[in-house]
């Protein structure tokens, strides 16, 4: 694929970003990457849509959690808003598998045949769940499993989504609502907050009214409804859906003048982003971060039901501040999203700046902090909810350590490579848990 096409796809994404920011989801830029300021919720939603990721969006009621992702999905996937609304799952305890995934064809059922009528939620590539924390755990698990694997089963039938991404909204995990338990929340790639835009932008939102009307198309919405309800094989149906999507894309270009992405465009973007390599600092820093979040000198690894001993040598590291062990989904999420960000910024390699920008959002929901650590940060001035704020602080702390020790860490990893290849060398020693982890990988028994 030539760089000309690269840049045109990139431009299209930027156009979508700017269009949504200027017209649909008015909000302040709150994060800076490589000197450019972005609104984190919008940027990360775009990345989620491109990466086939799973995003959890939190925020106060009425601050655009759901509408922002609806706009993003509409323009990235070429679906009119009405179709998207029809596929959303609302989070409440009475949700059933039949409403979420599919139901039997009652007529056929009465004559003894099991034919599944799939829900729009399971058919469409974009899956939006509103207030996922209000769903019982079994339903949360069912949705996350389905999106993880891309296939949905009901009775004895199954469909396999070719592409998919999940956006789930939730109110703050606080009084009166279910929490999303740790094994489930870990499946989300990222967590962001949809913030209040401030009084001036809020006034504009009120004055201009609902601008999302531009993303409607009644005629196409009816056609979508018809196609999705037809009893056709899944692949055939989705081809027809794609044709309608393209028609919607043309309508968007003619009307509001926004370019959107076709399925092939998204596939191209994904394959391009997958080719972008990680640079060595990204590689080493990520290893360092994982080490700090999983290491326990005394117990072998962090475990959420086992506590730290007092006066441990590694008190200054994050392993002493957290209760649980970071999961392997974390490096998958951060790697995937960092590549998408690097692609979006037109960079040749994925570097530390991409990593630093996104890491807090991939970590915030995955870390269980110790009480005393939470107490230290609770009353600090901040712009983010506590989880994200503490994750940002943690990333900054680890980054400072990396800036100091980066060359030595890379040397340690280089020496480890040679040792593993059979060279007679001594592993490089250091204070940070990464050095201990390297020695464990080399088969050394590391004792107190």
């Amino acid at each position, binding site marked *: 694929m030539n760089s000309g096409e690269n840049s045109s796809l990139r431009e299209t994404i930027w156009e979508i970003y700017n269009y949504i920011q200027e017209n649909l989801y008015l909000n302040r830029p709150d994060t800076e990457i490589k000197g450019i300021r972005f609104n984190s919720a919008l940027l990360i939603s775009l990345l989620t849509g491109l990466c086939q990721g799973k995003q959890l969006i939190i925020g106060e009621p009425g601050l655009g959690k759901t509408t922002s992702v609806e706009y993003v999905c509409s323009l990235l996937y070429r679906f009119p808003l009405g179709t998207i609304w029809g596929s959303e799952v609302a989070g409440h305890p009475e949700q059933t598998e039949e409403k979420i995934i599919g139901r039997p064809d009652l007529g056929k059922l009465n004559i003894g045949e099991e034919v599944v009528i799939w829900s729009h939620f399971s058919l469409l590539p974009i899956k939006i769940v509103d207030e996922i924390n209000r769903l019982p755990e079994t339903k949360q698990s069912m949705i996350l499993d389905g999106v993880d694997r891309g296939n949905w089963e009901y009775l004895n039938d199954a469909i396999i989504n070719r592409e998919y991404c999940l956006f789930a909204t939730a109110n703050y995990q606080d009084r009166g609502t279910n929490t999303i338990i740790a094994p489930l929340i870990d499946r989300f790639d990222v967590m962001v907050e949809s913030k209040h835009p401030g009084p001036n932008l809020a006034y504009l939102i009120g004055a201009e009214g609902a601008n999302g009307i531009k993303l409607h198309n009644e005629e196409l919405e009816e056609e979508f409804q018809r196609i999705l309800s037809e009893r056709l094989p899944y692949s055939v149906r989705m081809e027809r859906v794609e044709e309608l999507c393209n028609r919607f894309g043309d309508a968007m270009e003619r009307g509001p003048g926004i370019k959107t992405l076709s399925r092939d465009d998204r596939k191209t973007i994904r394959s391009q982003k997958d080719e972008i390599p990680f640079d060595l600092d990204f590689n080493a820093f990520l290893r360092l971060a994982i080490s700090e979040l999983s290491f326990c000198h005394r117990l072998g690894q962090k475990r959420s039901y086992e506590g730290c001993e007092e006066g441990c040598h590694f008190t200054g590291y994050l392993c002493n501040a957290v209760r649980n062990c970071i999961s392997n989904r974390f490096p998958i999420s951060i790697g995937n999203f960092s590549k998408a960000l690097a692609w979006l910024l037109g960079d040749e390699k994925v570097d530390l700046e991409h990593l630093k920008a996104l890491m807090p959002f991939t970590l915030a929901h995955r870390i269980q902090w110790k009480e005393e650590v939470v107490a230290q940060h609770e009353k600090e001035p901040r712009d983010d909810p506590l989880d994200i704020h503490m994750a940002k602080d943690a990333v900054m702390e680890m980054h*400072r350590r990396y800036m100091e020790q980066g060359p030595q860490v890379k040397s340690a990893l280089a020496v480890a490579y040679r040792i593993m290849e059979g060279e007679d060398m001594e592993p490089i020693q250091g204070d940070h848990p990464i050095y201990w982890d390297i020695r464990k990988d080399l088969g050394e028994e590391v004792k107190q």
Partner: protein
Amino acid sequence: MMRDLDHILKTVWPEVRRRHLFPELPTPEYGEGDQRVGLDIKGKKISISKQFVEGISEVMEPQKALEGLLDHAVSHYLYCPWDFSTHLKLYREAKKVLKDTQMAKRATDCFIDVVADTSCVSQKDTPLPELYKHLQRGSMEEAMHALYQKIWGMDLGVEGHHEISRKLSRLPYLDRSRWKESIRRFARAIHYLLEEEEREGNLDKPSSMGNHSLDQYSLQEIEKGLQELASDVNSPTEFKEILQDFKDEILKGDMNSEQAMGLGPGRSSDANILYYMKLAENYLLPIRRTPMEKSGSLYPHHHVPWEVGSPYHDIDPWTSFGKIMPGITQTWQRHEGSVFSHEEGTPNCIVIIDSSGSMTDPTRHLSHAVLGAACACDAYLRNDAQVAVYNFSDAYIGAQRILTYSRNRREIYRTLCHYFGGGTQLQMESIEALQTDRVPDIFLITDMQITNLEIMIEYFNSVKNRVTAVHIGNNKQVQTFRSSMALRDNVGIYAVGKKEDIPRIVLGKIKEYLYTLTP
């Protein structure tokens, strides 16, 4: 030339940033400054003197000069002193040796420069050595540059100073764990140079690379640094001394910092307040969440698939499409609802603290009794409750201080820190006057050598408050108190063998009171 310099800075900074692995620093700018001093750092904002750069451009490429300056500035952020707490610790060690504020500050500045620059030179390809070659030098700078020549192995054009550079070259500057010991030896070795600078009136003149005032730290960093210093020092006197040395700089940056940090208009008692305040911050408990409790009624909550053999009464016919068959039929699962519990807020707290002669004077030595009381106050204040303080010694002759319910942290700590040093007698009427309809919790910290113990026992036998009595040591009065309170569920008595255990016991009780769900 000016436009060129602007352009050069714009090109150089991204490279320097990349070389140092993207530090979180704002883009540097040109600022006011003289030809002698190249850098100024305020709140992490690097300001470069244009005059300086123009001057040095006569002898070296401006690009390299800028790179060198930026490398130096970034190294201070990245490596040494890293944060305000480290800066203070280094200063403290230097002061122990030099016993003079200005000299200690200067020695700390020099040490920080050596560490930061050496770290940069050892890890990166930097034009710093070339920059140093062309800088103007006083006697101190000459000695330092002679040291750099020796430890970097580069010629900076300095002659002489063999002895001092030999002495200083053996210090492990790059070993952070030995910085405390290193700065002491460093200060000792350069003492004579500092005396010379003092005689010439150059002691507070900044070096060519700028000074290291506390302006470079944010208020949060200063607060955190003071917190670490409080737990690091051996006594409040030492804390006070260091605070006094830096007080002007700490207060200069932010007009509101006085309130924020509890520093007052120069009274030494305010330093005591700050000391215990910061120390207590090391024992923080998280804010209490409003507890939920089960409502006692069952409500249909979600569906589960019906299985053959399961009862029929909870089948939902609507979601089952009117069918009773496995895989289709759904039944309701019922759950108990959750509602807010009746305890809507945190009760207030009365802290009763003994400041008689047998207790430690909190202004001279670390008083764990005051610290424990401070932890209790902090915990209740953070949970939006109010605290009243009753500080007593010989109450009947007026040696008592009462602070009625307040959220004013400074006043609470001021009352806690007051020391009478006299006899030990409580006035129950004063405590009774603090009782309210909403029964407060009571924390009593004493060594129990109370003259009117019987009256106190009688009083606590009659109250409904949750009382936690923490006492130091064991004596006859303690036995009497224990046996009298044995049947009282609401009174807990805890003996501490080591005073260091007081805060832990207090916090343990608070956790039990405030953080356990009501059944």
